[in-house]
């Protein structure tokens, strides 16, 4: 073995699809851009400020935590930026700066890093942060209060709140087309339904998110809302309304599909998604909160590890073949 040539030596397999975690997160951010840009057009510079602050502060929190924990800096994997972006999409355009920074702290540190970082979070970090904020300072996240200075060409009332407190008749003017085109008061990136759907379909087609979760989540909302609507159409809005307003679409395509807090087997994915949709409408229609998506997602992430035990039986090896 006299030759001194330095060959690369590693373990099998010697091929890889080329996929990687950061590529995935950059694609998810790109897919979210359609809805984000629509939000910027609608809400202008304040929305841009919220998004920039959210993405930037999320990355800084990640860096600070890594530094304190003496771990390699992981902001280049794109996950912190993604969390910042998705979190900003849920916020009203005029959210105070300190609410944004507190939110990204909750998402990055409390939602993700204290569990061990990427892949170890039991809940979607964005959902954790938003849930804590809406229980702590509901007034700053109330779309009706936050958007009071805007002049819109449409009814500026937050549809979710209107139906909750005034019944189905209050939202009769919102057609599905209006909701899809973003003619509704909403968060920066949650209103433009068609953009979220296009982004979601792109992610599904490219294999970055699992269609089973998104589809069953929306189906769960649709079916549950339909049952309520059939029971009492005066109080409960129709299924189309529930699917296309509030956080339903961003929840289905960008929140529920977060890898670490969702199941990987086929049947569990369907159960997880459908249960999420069911709980969402349950909270909206008979719970105390205006929108149910966030709390429904927390609950289904809680049952995820148990549900994911439903899996095909492993094939037993036939023989001891070395």
């Amino acid at each position, binding site marked *: 073995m006299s030759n001194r*040539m330095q*060959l690369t030596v590693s373990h099998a*397999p010697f091929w*890889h699809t*080329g996929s990687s975690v950061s590529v995935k997160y950059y694609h998810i951010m790109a897919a979210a851009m359609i809805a984000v840009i629509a939000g910027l057009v609608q809400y202008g510079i304040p929305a841009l400020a919220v998004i920039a602050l959210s993405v930037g502060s999320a990355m800084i929190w990640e860096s600070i935590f890594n530094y304190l924990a003496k771990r390699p800096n992981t902001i280049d994997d794109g996950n912190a930026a993604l969390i910042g972006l998705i979190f900003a999409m849920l916020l009203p355009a005029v959210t105070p700066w300190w609410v944004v920074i507190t939110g990204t702290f909750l998402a990055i540190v409390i939602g993700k890093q204290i569990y061990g970082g*990427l892949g170890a979070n039991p809940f979607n970090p964005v959902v954790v942060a938003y849930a804590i904020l809406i229980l702590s300072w509901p007034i700053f996240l109330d779309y009706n209060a936050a958007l009071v200075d805007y002049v819109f060409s449409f009814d500026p009332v937050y549809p979710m709140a209107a139906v909750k407190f005034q019944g189905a008749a209050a939202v009769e003017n919102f057609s599905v087309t209006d909701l899809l085109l973003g003619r509704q008061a909403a968060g920066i990136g949650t209103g433009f339904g068609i953009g979220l759907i296009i982004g979601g379909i792109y992610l599904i*087609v490219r294999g970055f998110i699992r269609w089973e979760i998104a589809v069953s989540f929306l189906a769960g909302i649709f079916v549950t809302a339909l049952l309520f609507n059939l029971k009492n159409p005066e109080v409960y809005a129709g299924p189309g309304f529930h699917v296309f307003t509030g956080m339903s679409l961003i929840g289905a395509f960008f929140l529920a599909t977060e890898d670490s807090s969702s*199941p990987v087997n086929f049947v569990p994915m369907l159960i997880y998604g459908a249960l999420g949709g069911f709980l969402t409408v349950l909270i909206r229609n008979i719970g105390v909160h205006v929108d149910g998506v966030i709390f429904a997602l927390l609950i289904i992430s809680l049952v995820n590890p148990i549900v994911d035990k439903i899996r095909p039986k*492993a094939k037993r090896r036939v*023989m001891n073949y070395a």
Partner: protein
Amino acid sequence: MINRSIFGIAPPKLTYDVIDAEPPKPISVVPKEKVTLFIAESLETSSGLLIQTGAHVTAGEKLKLLPDSVAYAISPVSGSVDSVSPFTGIMGKQLTAVVIKTENGAEAPQADEAFGEAAKTPGLETALAFLAGLPGAPDFSALARKDDPVKTILIMGADNDLMTITNQFVVKTDSGAIRSGVDILRKMTGSRNVNIAMAVPANLVQAAGASGVSVKGVSNLYPQAHPEMVAFDFMGKDAAGSKDDMTFFSAEAVSKIGRAFTEGKIPFEKIITFVGKDGAKKIVSAPVGTHVRDILEKVGASVKDGDRIVFGGPMTGVSVYSIDHPVEPDTDAIIVQDKNQIIASEDLACINCGQCVRVCPTHVPVNELIRYLDAGEYEQAAERAELDACIECGYCTYVCESRIPIFQHIRLAKHALERMKAAEENNV
């Protein structure tokens, strides 16, 4: 070959390479200066060795370390022993490497008389004594077992890794030798009624029919031609209870067994699928022990610092440290990868994307398994996450988004568990 679905909803599928209708003639490689042979025995003493540096060796001579050694190698060339040294193989396996300097001009291997004599009475004893190092690496141990005898011999005419077409080539071009090899296998198993069958890719079913055994076509989707998958398929749903009563031979091994007994001398030429940096395949024929250096030179492939040479297929092969690594009896393929083609593993945690779970052919919950393995909880991995069900196809690692070396984790875990088990048995 990678087939990616247009819609991308399904993960990319890996398909086996299928041999052309008219396979090219093999490129014959002759070892230039040295050959290296591995003997499956650790070199613990330097005194009393039967192989001494400088000693003369003739082609076909049996090389053993000590008088009572069981392991042996058969020299494919005549020459003198250059060195005898310990060599560490996969998973710390202790081997002995014997380097033989070839004699100039002595290229015609002489028929080994000892085997020529023994070959007149074909049987298991002869095979055990002379043919363990045949190209194709036949494993006669299951046939030699007295209690719980083998009921089925499965000949693998389909290659179990990607890019590789070695066994298909043998089925296509050497069906006569396979047929005589099958006859010898029948003689070895004696009066017992052993079922012999052959698994080949669908396009070779007709060619394989000439071997005189029942032929089964296998799918070209990876890893359906893996011996374990063929066995699942072959035995149907109630495979339980049939443990251990099946054994595998590669088509090449069977053809070489046939040749050895009909010609009265041991064949050394190993058929190898050589894949260059451009992905072009060549069939190479070289004696076991030939250094890769000689093959690279003959096929005109250049290798630079940082490139990777893989022995075996891209999914389950082994990369080697040196271009002086020898062809081994089970080296079905040699793949040269350019530095720029190499995608390295990363030090990221599992993000639970589930790609591995969806491609696993035996439904191992890989996402759970890797968490146990990462923490070194090997016993838990076996108990709760189906470590034992893994057939080691490497698919999970191929699709892993975090680029975790899952396959290597699994191999290490199995190795550690085996050692623990052995230690426990020794303590009793």
